[in-house]
């Protein structure tokens, strides 16, 4: 990273395999450094996930790359085209689907797509044909002429994504594409996103869900407080925290030090213990080892109030990577009373 170093030519030092290249990106709002020196390299044809809690700077970073926010320091290019220098070119290469559906409530679905097509230079007839085709592809043909006020959240997201694909841009930005969607709709959205890559697109998406990044992304960058704290494949990321987590609530009178020693002897690593609440989290490489831990505790007479085995949450990934939690209340795992 070389902050403040700018390339003079429009085509920067990114290779032919690079879709997005960013070096030392910075965005400040007053004293707050929302994005604090992020480097990013997204390869062509991959789904790249940017994972982080609310307020980590994911959306700000994406908006800078999409020319929606100015870049305070650092440099970014899309397929070799400099973002700050040639925003109009960059806009022709990127389809942006925002966190909040950016479609017009006062128009119907067809009218929305027709307008966006016209704005991007399609002839009226072509704009109409493209609108019809996309509405069919996204299962919205029946709602084509309905006002958007009657659309469900999932339908609006699909329309929003369809609107980003009108000119078939080679790069798609998706800002939290499934936040607030029900599980079934989320699954449909995932299929659609996978389909984009089959089509030859590159996808850069942000998400708060480890699960989503895991399902979709070829590679993941974890962002925290405006900085990139980790990057790798989903497997590499999960290995850093184990495949699943055993969450224990120890009995009030339980010997916490003894419990920790037992866990260490059984699975070989230290549990994360919160002494005040008596909560203990144990990262497990395989879920099977949970039984071994429980048997060990029972034999030593350590009382347990509740037990659950969960996939590692974003919180735990964060804890493992940054040493602090996301600051968000995670949905509690289903607990089995002991």
């Amino acid at each position, binding site marked *: 990273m070389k902050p403040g170093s700018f390339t003079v030519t429009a085509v920067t030092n990114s290779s032919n395999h690079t879709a997005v290249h960013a070096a030392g990106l910075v965005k400040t709002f007053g004293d707050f450094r929302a994005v604090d020196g992020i480097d990013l390299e997204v390869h062509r044809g991959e789904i790249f996930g940017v994972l982080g809690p609310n307020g980590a700077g994911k959306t700000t970073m994406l908006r800078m790359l999409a020319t929606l926010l100015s870049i305070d320091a650092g440099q970014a290019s899309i397929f070799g085209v400099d973002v700050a220098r040639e925003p109009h070119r960059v806009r022709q*290469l990127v389809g*942006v689907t*925002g966190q909040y559906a*950016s479609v017009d409530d006062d128009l119907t679905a067809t009218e929305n797509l027709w*307008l966006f097509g016209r704005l991007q230079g399609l002839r009226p007839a072509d704009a109409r044909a493209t609108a019809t085709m996309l509405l069919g592809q996204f299962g919205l043909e029946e709602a084509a002429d309905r006002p958007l006020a009657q659309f469900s959240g999932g339908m609006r997201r699909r329309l929003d994504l369809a609107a980003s694909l009108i000119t078939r841009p080679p790069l798609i930005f998706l800002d939290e594409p499934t936040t607030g969607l029900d599980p079934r709709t989320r699954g449909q959205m995932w299929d659609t996103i996978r389909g*984009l890559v089959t089509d030859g697109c590159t996808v850069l998406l942000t998400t708060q869900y480890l699960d989503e990044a895991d399902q979709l992304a070829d590679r993941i960058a974890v962002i925290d407080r405006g900085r990139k704290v980790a990057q790798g494949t989903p497997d590499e990321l999960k290995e850093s925290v184990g495949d699943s987590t055993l969450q224990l609530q120890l009995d009030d009178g339980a010997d916490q030090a003894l419990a920790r020693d037992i866990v260490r002897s059984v699975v070989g690593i230290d549990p994360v213990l919160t002494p005040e609440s008596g909560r203990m989290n144990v990262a497990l490489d395989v879920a099977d080892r949970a039984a071994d831990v429980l048997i060990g505790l029972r034999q030593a007479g350590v009382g347990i109030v509740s037990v659950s085995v969960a996939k590692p949450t974003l919180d735990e990934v964060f804890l493992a990577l940054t040493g602090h939690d996301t600051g968000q209340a995670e949905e509690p795992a289903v607990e089995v009373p002991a």
Partner: protein
Amino acid sequence: MSVIAPVDPAAAVARTRAHPSPAETLVQTFSMAWRALKKMRRNPEQFFDVTIQPLLFTAMFAYIFGGAISGSVKDYLPLMIPGIVAQTVLTTCMATGVQLREDMDKGVFDRFKSLPIARIAPLAGPMVADVVRYLIAASLTFLTGIVMGYRPGGGVLGVLAAIVLAIFTGWSMAWIFTWIGTIARTARSVQGFSMMILFPLTFLSNAFVPVETLPGWLQTFVKVNPVSHLVSATRDLANHSTVSAEVGWTVLAGLVVIGVFAPLSVRSYRRHL
């Protein structure tokens, strides 16, 4: 997902252009105007100000001030109708700024910003559509006047010319309010700020009273007020069918306003990014 050839990034990069062409800008502006017209049709309350205000203000002002200022309602109409035309058209401009501000807060503006379109298109589009509103406002004011007994000496051509001038002036003045729309933080503040400009401008003019009745210091301001020029020009056209120097001053003022505030608006809209 589709059977069309896969997306080719290299070809896409080669196709890109650094700037929108003037022809593209025009198509984009008219597409945005189409959107604004659709919205108007679906939200008819947007027409309240341009329909009710001409009817209400014309009747109200004529009966209240007519006797006092001109001796009778009928004699007051040739003086007042051009004043109401100017006032209504300026109020309509104000709505342009307020609506732009409201619109810019919506998610869809994020998409407009992310699309490869001329930055002026989302600003100029609604203003093109607003020509319809100026047309309604100006025509309805004349019509109300005629119903109340106003017989414009300029005839049909004079009145039509006056309406065209009012539309042009309205359209150019709207750039001021569009600019306010791009710098203000909320639609409400656009409204408040615009009122502060509008009220002195319309009332401290020759729109409703003869200038000679005003104190000297006020006459000085009234004479340079662009609204006075618009009102005088409208009177000359509608009542006498004369294209006076006032018409020239009004058109010049309009062009100056566009020349100053259109670039300012685009600059401030860009900065919003």
